[in-house]
């Protein structure tokens, strides 16, 4: 039954809704056109935002200075080793500000079940091109044999692996690394048996400050007391466990002065590349990982990715705009006779326009909201569906990789609503300009 409202708008709106409901199939198609475009936009945007944040975090975690990592040739950060003398040699190179020793080990946590969607290495794997370079560099860092060893490991084993980093807290404090990034508890003060863990690891393992954790490397096992949780913003490190140099050497079976790498911080205004060349010249059997250059390369990859993203987004928006336009034009063509009839029985042009504007605004707004919801849920959907569709694949942590910002939502609203409304009004303008007689003959 018709509602008995008395305002012109009430009736118009009523008629608009009847038109939308009465032509359900077309309405759903138009809603989908808007929703799909908006969902793709939201999905793509939040993926770039998320990746940008992650890379931003990684760059930041390296401190304000660029740095060069020196490591044993062929072994990468996990399987190579350097003697303490190398550190001393590097320290004497002009332009070197700090030399920070670190020990890296791929360990396993015993008696802990890690609830993680993927190991750190694969995070970058799913990031496409930008991820490709990270992966490449990581394998490079780990060295050829190490890379093969990792590959040889089963996925389950890999999934339970945790990067252990042995540090000298005093030196790390100077370069504003882990000790200055504590979000809970504090850095261990005894060189034996203390550990801090990354926030991601804490989340995945359920471990917290005060807990004991057993770390295994090869046949060795050691217990650590967790004194704090850090967050540097880089998942590679935030999924790790940090202990003293001494404990790490002990676990790995390294000699008194041996380390995995020396992180070298140059004096301000000294290029990391220059330092790298110096190290190469002065020390034998040392390979160089120029972190500054790596980050720059990753940044460039991200920019590249963003260009692709903008292109894809532009295509998506244009395509949806075109689709909406075609859909409305078709529907207007279908409705030409109807519009002619309305004009014949005394509807003014603006009346016709008002009706169609209400219709397309409703479609635009509902479609946009639908699209935003779908776009936000898309990563969750992928995460839930992937194991079902590809049981043997490691599921990337889509929900952690994406970040929905308010800017994305606002842009999505603007794009969805304008394309929906403009797409509706343009053909409506055309149709209302037609003389009723022409409209009748247009069949």
């Amino acid at each position, binding site marked *: *039954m*018709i509602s*008995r*409202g*008395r*305002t*012109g*708008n*009430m*009736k*118009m709106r009523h*008629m608009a809704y*009847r*038109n939308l*409901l*009465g*032509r359900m199939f077309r309405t759903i198609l138009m809603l989908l056109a808007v929703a799909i475009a908006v969902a793709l936009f939201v999905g793509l945007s939040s993926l770039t935002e998320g990746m940008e944040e992650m890379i931003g975090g990684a760059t930041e975690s390296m401190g304000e200075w660029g740095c060069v990592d020196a490591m044993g040739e062929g072994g990468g950060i996990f399987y190579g080793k350097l003697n303490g003398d190398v550190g001393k040699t590097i320290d004497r190179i002009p332009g070197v500000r700090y030399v920070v020793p670190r020990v890296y080990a791929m360990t396993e946590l015993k008696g802990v079940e890690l609830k993680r969607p993927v190991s750190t290495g694969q995070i970058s794997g799913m990031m496409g091109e930008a991820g490709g370079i990270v992966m490449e560099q990581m394998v490079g860092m780990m060295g050829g044999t190490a890379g093969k060893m990792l590959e040889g490991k089963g996925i389950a084993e890999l999934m339970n692996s945790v990067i252990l980093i042995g540090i000298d807290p005093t030196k790390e404090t100077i370069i504003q690394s882990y000790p200055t990034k504590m979000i809970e508890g504090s850095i261990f003060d005894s060189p034996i048996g203390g550990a801090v863990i990354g926030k991601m690891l804490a989340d995945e393992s359920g471990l917290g400050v005060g807990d004991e954790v057993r770390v295994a490397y090869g046949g060795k096992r050691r217990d650590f007391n967790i004194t704090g949780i850090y967050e540097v913003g880089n998942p590679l490190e935030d999924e790790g466990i940090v202990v003293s140099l001494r404990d790490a050497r002990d676990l790995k079976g390294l000699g008194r002065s041996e380390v995995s790498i020396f992180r070298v911080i140059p004096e301000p205004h000294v290029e990391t590349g220059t330092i790298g060349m110096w190290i190469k010249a002065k020390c034998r059997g040392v390979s160089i990982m120029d972190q500054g250059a790596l980050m720059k390369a990753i940044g460039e990859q991200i920019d590249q990715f963003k260009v692709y993203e903008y292109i894809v987004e532009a295509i998506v928006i244009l395509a949806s705009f075109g689709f909406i336009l075609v859909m409305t034009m078709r529907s207007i063509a279908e409705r030409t*006779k*109807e519009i002619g*009839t*309305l*004009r*014949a*029985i*005394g*509807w*003014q*042009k603006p*009346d016709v326009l*008002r009706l169609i504007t209400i219709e397309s605004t409703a479609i635009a707004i509902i479609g946009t909201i639908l699209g935003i919801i779908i776009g936000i849920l898309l990563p969750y959907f992928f995460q839930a569906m992937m194991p079902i569709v590809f049981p043997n694949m490691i599921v990337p942590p889509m929900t952690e990789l994406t970040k929905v910002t308010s800017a994305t939502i606002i842009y999505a609203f603007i794009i969805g609503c304008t394309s929906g409304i403009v797409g509706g009004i343009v053909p409506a303008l055309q149709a209302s300009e037609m*003389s*009723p*007689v022409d409209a*009748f003959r247009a069949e």
Partner: protein
Amino acid sequence: MIETRNVTKIYKLGDTDVIGAKEINLKIEEGEFLSIMGPSGSGKSTLLYLIGGLDKPTSGDVLIDGVNIVEMEERALCEVRRDKIGFIFQEFNLISTLTAIENTLVPLIPMGVSADEMERGMKLLESFDLKDRIDHLPGQLSGGQQQRVAIARALINEPEIVLADEPTGELDTKSGDELIQLMEEMNRREGVTFIIVTHDPVVSGKTRRTIFLQDGMIVKD
């Protein structure tokens, strides 16, 4: 009262001119019940549209109650159509998504429908034997029922003139008869002028005056 003075309508189709109406001079008094006949293409619809202000003549004047609608601008013309004229079409031209009562009230929707107008719409449908059908969509109605809804829509604004372009063209004989009877009744009771374009001699036989057209000209009145 309707008066046409030397009304000529020429359609341009590329280089050729097609004559839709040629020097039509007509006077139709208030309350007339009139039919227009003629072969296909003789200009019946053209004349009807010109009288109804849906189209403008190439030359000549159309006066409704002494006002020349040819000189009117679109907006005012629209109001004339809304307030003084009702249209009925061969194919009913109902809005397929709206119910019978809603279709009846469509001309009023831009201004908003009052309770009184609503009441009037109901009464119209009732008097057209559509009481049980007010909430039905056009697709759920027979052709005769749809055309009766169309008449209710044409009458909702209490127009002086109703223009019908082959209103029985899509109907069987019985529904057609009923429809013409209905129009006749409205003409008699309310004094509404009816101008009915038809091919059917039976229909024109029921009107009091018949105009014959050929090649855009009046050949018999």
